């Protein structure tokens, strides 16, 4: 029964030719210098079309945010707590002018300066909070899902208990515990970040745990077990890489939520004093009463800053997510050859 098999329908035919064409580009990609294989850069190189547009927009916004945070002292015309320059007071609630391009607030701060300095606080809180909860949540979720048994039960119960607690109340309690109600710049940032961390850990934990429990029964994990792969390798290579698909989404949502939680803390007086650091949420809250009297500049610009920051992070997260999954990634060669076929 040695038969040169008739090419079975859909077996080798068309998919083969453009895969063969693609092999060359894939091969070329593997030999490229190390810096092109860094996460974001390699994603950028792999992307095409709309995916690339999204990624580039997101990258521009995030880079803008980071550069502004880094160069805040150079970019901002005044200090974040300055109410006067060269002995002359700014005046309160001044509309945009040459001296104050975005106007001044009710307390007499320069809006542009506060928005620029605010990027520092936002970035610091976002990074601390999301990084801490990401690592802890993912590690716990992975362990809990893979090991199972009583460890799993205890952890799930704990996560549920934290979930049931009002997050803002938890954040307030944490900030009192951490900084004793005082609010200097780093004390405030850390308090906000850690309180946000505690609130977010259960989210990461649950998502990762649910995925791991599902993946644990997949044949490819069993295939690894049959081979004798160690637990650590199974968790790292087979489970983690497949379980992180939904992470960027929560990651980005949490990044925005962390800014909002920070603002809420500021509003309630547990955040950062306006004299120790600039913070958009605080400014936004102070601008609430202005909006009714037609003073739009005090609220618009901090709000816009929050929107752009969150949008940038979300776009990057979403497109990296799509590009990471070989099944969602659009591929250049294939699309071209499809067009050729269509023509």
């Amino acid at each position, binding site marked *: *029964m*040695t*038969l040169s*098999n*008739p090419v*079975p*329908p*859909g*077996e*080798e*035919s068309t*998919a083969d030719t453009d*895969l*063969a064409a693609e*092999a060359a580009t*894939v*091969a070329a990609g*593997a030999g490229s210098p190390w810096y092109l294989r860094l996460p974001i850069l390699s994603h950028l190189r792999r992307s095409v079309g709309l995916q690339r547009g999204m990624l580039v927009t997101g990258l521009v916004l995030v880079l803008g945010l980071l550069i502004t945070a880094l160069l805040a002292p150079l970019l901002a015309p005044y200090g974040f707590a300055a109410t006067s320059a060269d002995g002359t007071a700014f005046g309160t609630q001044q509309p945009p002018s040459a001296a104050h391009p975005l106007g001044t607030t009710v307390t007499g701060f320069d809006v542009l300066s506060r928005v620029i300095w605010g990027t520092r606080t936002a970035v610091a809180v976002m990074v601390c909070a999301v990084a801490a909860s990401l690592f802890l949540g993912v590690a716990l979720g992975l362990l809990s899902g893979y090991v199972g048994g009583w460890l799993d039960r205890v952890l799930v119960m704990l996560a549920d208990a934290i979930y049931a607690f009002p997050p803002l109340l938890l954040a307030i309690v944490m900030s009192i515990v951490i900084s004793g109600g005082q609010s200097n710049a780093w004390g405030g940032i850390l308090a906000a970040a850690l309180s946000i961390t505690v609130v977010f850990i259960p989210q990461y934990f649950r998502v990762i745990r649910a995925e791991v429990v599902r993946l644990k029964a*997949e*044949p*490819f994990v*069993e*295939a*690894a*077990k*049959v*081979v*004798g*792969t*160690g637990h650590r*390798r199974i968790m790292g*290579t*087979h489970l983690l*890489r*497949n379980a992180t698909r939904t992470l960027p989404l929560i990651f980005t949502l949490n990044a925005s939520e962390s800014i909002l939680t920070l603002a809420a803390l500021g509003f309630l007086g547990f955040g950062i004093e306006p004299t120790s650091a600039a913070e958009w949420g605080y400014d936004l809250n102070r601008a609430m009463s202005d909006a009714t009297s037609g003073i739009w500049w005090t609220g618009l610009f901090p709000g816009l800053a929050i929107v752009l920051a969150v949008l940038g992070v979300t776009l990057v997260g979403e497109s990296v997510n799509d590009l990471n*999954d*070989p*099944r969602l990634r659009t591929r250049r060669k294939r699309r071209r050859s499809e067009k050729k076929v269509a023509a």
Partner: protein
Amino acid sequence: MVALSGPRLRALRGEDVSMIFQEPSSALNPVFPIWWQIGEGLRAHRPKMTRKEIRAEAVSALEAVGIPDAAERIDRYPHEFSGGQKQRIMIAMALALGAELIVADEPTTALDVTVQAEILDLLRDVRDRFDTSLIVITHNMGVVADLADSVAVMYRGRIIERAGVKELFAEPREEYTKKLLAAVPHLGRRSAWTALSEEQQQEIEEAPPVVVAEDLVIEYPGRLGKPAFRAVKGVDFTIRAGQVYGLVGESGSGKTTIGRAIAGLERTTGGSLQVLGHEMNGVREKAFKPVRRRIGFVFQDPATSFNPHLTIQECIAEPLIVHEKALSAGQREQKVRSLLEAVELPGDYARRYPHELSGGQRQRISLARALVLEPELLIADEPTSALDVSVQATVLELFRELQQRLGFAALFISHDLAVVDSLAHRIGVLFRGDLVEDGHGPDVLQRPQHDYTRKLIASLPVPDPAEQAKRRAAFAREWGSGAAAS
């Protein structure tokens, strides 16, 4: 038909044309009782029907397809029925609407052979009793030979050949049809055992045993208060070095459980299971790990047995990374390439991802991964049941060739007796956890000892209409009409 509008089409569906799907378990809605689902179609065509009428219709439809106690069973939910019964219910749904044409899309692919014989019998019976036309879509040439009057062969979106069933099997015109027919394993022809010379048979018989099972018992723990489920009930068998042992049985017979136990994926509860000299009963993972490199495993479903995030290269190299830590990346790559060659795939496939390959190609990769450490024992759990006939033939051919070249012992698990016979030196037949038959291919097929084996052999449709008609008659004589409940 093509030009019909939505509402007209809807009126046509059900009353004139009805469909039976491949997977009966997903074609029924799990949250509604059976009568409701049969009634859904009825209500769509006759909106004024009362609940009582619907139930009466449902009962008579279920009785027509041979489900006993229909009046009581219409209140049950789909999960309370077996696969064959669900397929009967699907047929009943078509009948309740009085469809003149039933389109059956691979109606028996998901079913066991014995159940398949009953469903085929039922379909034939339905045609005779209700004068319904049937379009059966299938890849199984045995089913075609058994059921069809005329056949159309499709290839790449075109019908390439159309002929009466006898004519098609006797003298196929197209090249593709010929090859397709040649690829179908035919029960009793080309038995792997008879293909060996006497010395080879002798050699295999005297080879040292690789796997010895004595009174092997495997249980799945029951829920609180319920007794454990006994999947394997005291099974004895021996696999010798260089021997291919075929394990046949219907789904739920415990054949996969035995394979998983040998690979250390399942714990044994009783008896003794010696794998490569290690006792598996109460084995500790640490003690078994060195043995794992001597065992290869090929999984049933090629779609899910690979990590979608790893390239083929990484998938095949995984056992090397675990067991041969001394190898450099370059050596590993070389090894992967040579294996890809061995399974007849081009070397540049190494950089692709699993989802970019077809099922047959993936199953070759699976074979390559299992063989990368040159194991002494290979466990293949239904490696070809997810593949098309022609693809299955090439994968089996590859398996046979690699086995002869590398000489590993193998446990080949399958539900298809014809496939097993063409590959295995020794065949074991499992029936509900008991090994009812154990012997060389020709012995089992021609002189079956157990009633179940005889039924299994009789219900397997052979790709030859004339022979199949005879077999069908014999089957009906011995076991009666299949219209009785499965």
